């Protein structure tokens, strides 16, 4: 039996030499994507003096955990940034899940009278947007979000793509019969949604939740638009990296004018690389396990509707 099963698959395979070539190609591509992260990790674990002497290298002369020890002791805005990033990520993800799942659920109900209208309502922003300047002026001028945490969370918490993924999932994976039986028992829509639909839709919630988590953890644009240097204690991790980069560029550019190299007062290279790793490691450790949710989210999203 087993032999019969194996035979046809074997015929459909490419030649062994081709297989070796293709495998080699993908190993090279995989390493190309992975090695830069490894370099930064190694630099962050290198001894500061060795880096100053030999530059960045995959094989440092001496290893050291000094950079991470330094980071752990930070109480200023650098230490605070980590807490900010976690807070923004958690709050944003929850808010994003609430907004997208409620809209997705309503749009998935075949008998909802305003369904057609609201489908267009979320679709039009995918075609046309007011652009950065109009958003910026409204968010700062009318909503007063400049220099607040709200600016880092609200403008990106919902998206039509996520709503459509949710709607498609509810349409295809939640049996109509369950909802109808609950309705006959007298449950209201709110209760059906929270007690019945959400628990059996955990895969969709997990998928969109992951999208949102990565989005918020990686976001730096909102901070760049809406945070000024007056509120350093509100900087998320990603934006601290930008701010350090900017101040180092500024100081080295003005080195000649000022006569001294003031960049020495800023965190050293290994410390900055260690901060990059603090931003990368949670993601790098988590995504291999959640990859399949991403794949399913993308494939649901690609189904037109």
């Amino acid at each position, binding site marked *: 039996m087993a032999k019969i099963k194996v035979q*046809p698959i074997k015929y*459909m395979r490419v030649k062994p030499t081709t297989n070796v070539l*293709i495998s080699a190609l*993908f*190993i090279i591509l995989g390493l190309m*994507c992975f090695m*830069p992260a490894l*370099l930064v990790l190694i*630099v962050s674990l290198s001894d500061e003096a060795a880096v100053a002497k030999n*530059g*960045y*290298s995959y094989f440092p002369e001496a290893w050291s955990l000094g950079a991470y020890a330094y980071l752990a002791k930070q109480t200023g805005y650098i230490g605070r940034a980590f807490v900010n990033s976690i807070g923004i990520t958690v709050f944003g993800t929850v808010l994003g899940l609430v*907004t997208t799942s409620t*809209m997705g659920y*309503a749009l998935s109900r*075949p*008998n*909802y*009278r*305003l369904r057609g209208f609201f*489908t*267009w309502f979320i*679709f039009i*922003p995918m*075609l*046309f*947007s*007011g*652009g950065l*300047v*109009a*958003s*910026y*002026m*409204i*968010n700062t*001028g*009318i909503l007063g979000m400049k220099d607040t945490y709200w600016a880092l969370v609200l*403008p990106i918490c919902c998206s039509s793509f996520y*709503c459509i993924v949710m709607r498609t999932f509810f349409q295809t994976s939640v049996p109509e019969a369950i909802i*109808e039986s609950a309705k006959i028992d007298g449950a209201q*829509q*709110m209760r059906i949604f929270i007690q019945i639909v959400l628990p059996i839709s955990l895969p969709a919630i997990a998928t969109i939740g992951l999208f949102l988590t*990565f989005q918020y953890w*990686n976001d*730096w644009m909102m901070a*760049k638009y809406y945070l000024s240097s007056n509120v350093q204690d509100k900087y998320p991790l990603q934006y601290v990296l*930008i701010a350090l980069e900017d101040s180092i560029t500024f100081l080295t550019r003005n080195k000649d004018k000022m006569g001294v190299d003031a960049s020495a007062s800023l965190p050293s290279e290994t410390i900055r690389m260690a901060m*990059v790793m603090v*931003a*990368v490691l949670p*993601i*790098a450790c988590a*995504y291999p396990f959640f*990859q399949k949710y*991403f*794949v399913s989210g*993308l*494939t649901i999203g690609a189904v*037109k509707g």
Partner: protein
Amino acid sequence: MSKQSGKKKNSNASNGSSFDNLELFLLHLPTTLWYLIFCYAPMFGIVIAFKNYKVRPGKSFLYSLFVNSKWCGFKNFESLFKSSYFSTMMRNTIVYNIIFIILGIVIPVTLAILFNEIYSKKLAKVCQTMMFLPHFLSWVVISYFVYAFLATDRGLVNNLSRHLGILKADQANPQWYLNPGFWTWFLVFLNQWKGLGYGMVVYLATIAGIDQEMYEAALIDGASKAQQTKYITIPMLRPVMSIMFIMAVGNIFRSDFGLFYQATRNSGALTNITQTIDVYVFKALLEQNNINISSAASLVQSVAGCITIILANIVVKKIDSEAGLF
């Protein structure tokens, strides 16, 4: 989209009562408000582009806009079109996007087809996971990665080339961040590198969904691997390719701000190739505080983007009526 919403099921009278409708409406009311504030209000905010915006200190934004600022017709657009940056930023945005769109379909499709042929599924899985990593990283983090390679004094590239003798002892280290010729192509590389794993996913899922019996039938007819790819795999991938194409073409006037601004460390020497519409709007708005001209550029981008996505959809529908996005 409109097709589905038109298909209302006529089931039991107990469903779809006006009470249900109200409850569902209340359920998504917060999301609706979010859309009104963050998507629809900015659409009306485009009037800024037709005003000579002047701030009246101490007064609200709306007062400044509607009372204090005069209508100026298309004057903001005139000064935008006349400015010397306009042609540069249009050229950079469109030319780079055309390259990105073509490579962004050709490379992932080719790789997805090859990927499927690897014998060892374990190896394939490991490679795919590694290739997915850049997608999950922000441009800020990637700018540090790039810096680790390209930094003038300590960067790995300069270090290695000195060790290997490519750089002679009397030669100075090349300053990569001041070299537009190198970055012209490196930007393309970075874009493809970041999107590689992500780009493959949709095609891989589609290939996995192709009915294996088709290949078996082709095999019986004596089709070679190349013929199977040409006559089964690629035609089956075409609908997904066209959806990806429309979405990419619709964004042809948008550029990846992180790639052009952050990864290049906003280096002044590279402005000629990194000045895209988004970078220009950002700089004009937040660095020069020039609201008039940046709002004009922003509106040109939105309108042009909206027209291209609708046109792309019409064209694709003409070729293949099933393939349209909406």
